[in-house]
């Protein structure tokens, strides 16, 4: 009979106690017995989350106050509105991802979505085939008073997601819920959605900046 007082700490407990350096923790979560994300999955998600953040920030870094708030008509968002929307969606999705292991039933391997990961980006970054309208709850309302506050919120929010991708032991592939555009996708794919959605709006921002009526400064 097992002696519970003497049992070795599980990998999860070691991670939670924080005894191990993050690199070593990463190595442990790569082991085939662990149910969390693989190193390749973490690397792929990190790459796309970083790249899309950097691309979006590059579109915003040199904007004057007038340029931040410029909108050609009531149906076209300003840079400020675009970024607010991106942050709202990202906050909401990230909360759903973190809450999933505690609130949803883990799916057996043969019950999980069998949509390939690359589809997320392919669907979400397509802005030409059909025009899509944001769900009401994610439409910008002027929540942040200044562009500085908004950009800070965005970078901090993205930092949280990146840290989570690196360190989480959550078995994100085991939890799946509906994305209204794509269908039911798993928790890891929802993280890819954050990146793809950001890229989509980066494209929108580039279009806005390219308009002849965009203020020159």
């Amino acid at each position, binding site marked *: 009979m097992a002696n519970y007082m003497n049992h070795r700490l599980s990998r999860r407990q070691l991670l939670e106690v924080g005894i191990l350096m993050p690199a070593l923790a990463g190595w442990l979560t790569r082991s085939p017995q662990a149910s969390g994300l693989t190193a390749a999955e973490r690397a792929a998600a990190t790459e796309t989350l970083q790249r899309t953040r950097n691309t979006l920030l590059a579109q915003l870094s040199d904007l004057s106050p007038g340029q931040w708030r410029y909108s050609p008509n009531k149906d076209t968002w300003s840079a400020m509105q675009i970024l607010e929307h991106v942050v709202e969606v990202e906050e909401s999705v990230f909360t759903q991802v973190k809450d999933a292991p505690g609130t949803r039933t883990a799916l057996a391997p043969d019950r999980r979505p069998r949509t390939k990961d690359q*589809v997320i980006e392919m*669907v979400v970054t397509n802005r030409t085939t059909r025009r899509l309208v944001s769900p009401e709850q994610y439409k910008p309302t002027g929540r942040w008073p200044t562009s500085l506050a908004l950009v800070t919120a965005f970078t901090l929010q993205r930092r949280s997601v990146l840290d989570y991708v690196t360190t989480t032991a959550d078995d994100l592939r085991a939890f*799946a819920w509906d994305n209204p555009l794509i269908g039911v996708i798993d928790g890891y794919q929802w993280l890819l959605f954050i990146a793809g959605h950001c890229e989509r709006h980066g494209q929108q921002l580039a279009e806005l900046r390219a308009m002849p009526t965009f203020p020159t400064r």
Partner: protein
Amino acid sequence: MAMTMQHVSLTATERQAAVDLLTESAWAVREATTDLDERQWRFEPAPGRWAIADIVEHLVKSEQAVYQLVTEKLLPTPARPATRRPTLRDLAVILAVRNRNVRFQAAELVRPTRTWTMPEALAGAFGAARVGTVNFIRDTTEDLRGRIAEHPVLGDIDAYQWFLFLGAHTQRHVDQLREVKADPAFPRKQMRGDVL
């Protein structure tokens, strides 16, 4: 009494959506390849990049491959229950396939091999194959939603979505084809009296 699966044909809306997509994309190919001369068919925009003839050969092969997959491999198998079906949405299939910002190498089976002698016959071959596809989708009472096959790029999709893929895939390559025609080096149509 034996248990039987509920037999489910396409809805009228589904059927019409697929017919429209397949018909419109076929017209787009025809419109883009009407009146091309031999040099235009064979023009490569860059070394190793597909000529219009390669694109259309690829479309012919894709049409045949998908039609055979559905009719010969999937339909003879039993339909899957609703709980075991793909979760990818129909619109997502179309959006994904139409997105040329993400590129892929064509699978071996459908890669152009330039085995034809007259490139203009390719357009006719595609049109004929597409007519067969449209007739099938228009008339079938089979349960297409219950038959699933893994797509190499998309993952699991049902037989109906394989036809949506076919239509969107055609559109994708029409976009590519138009780019070839818009290339500054694309040969002007040879006219009688041209000095070559």
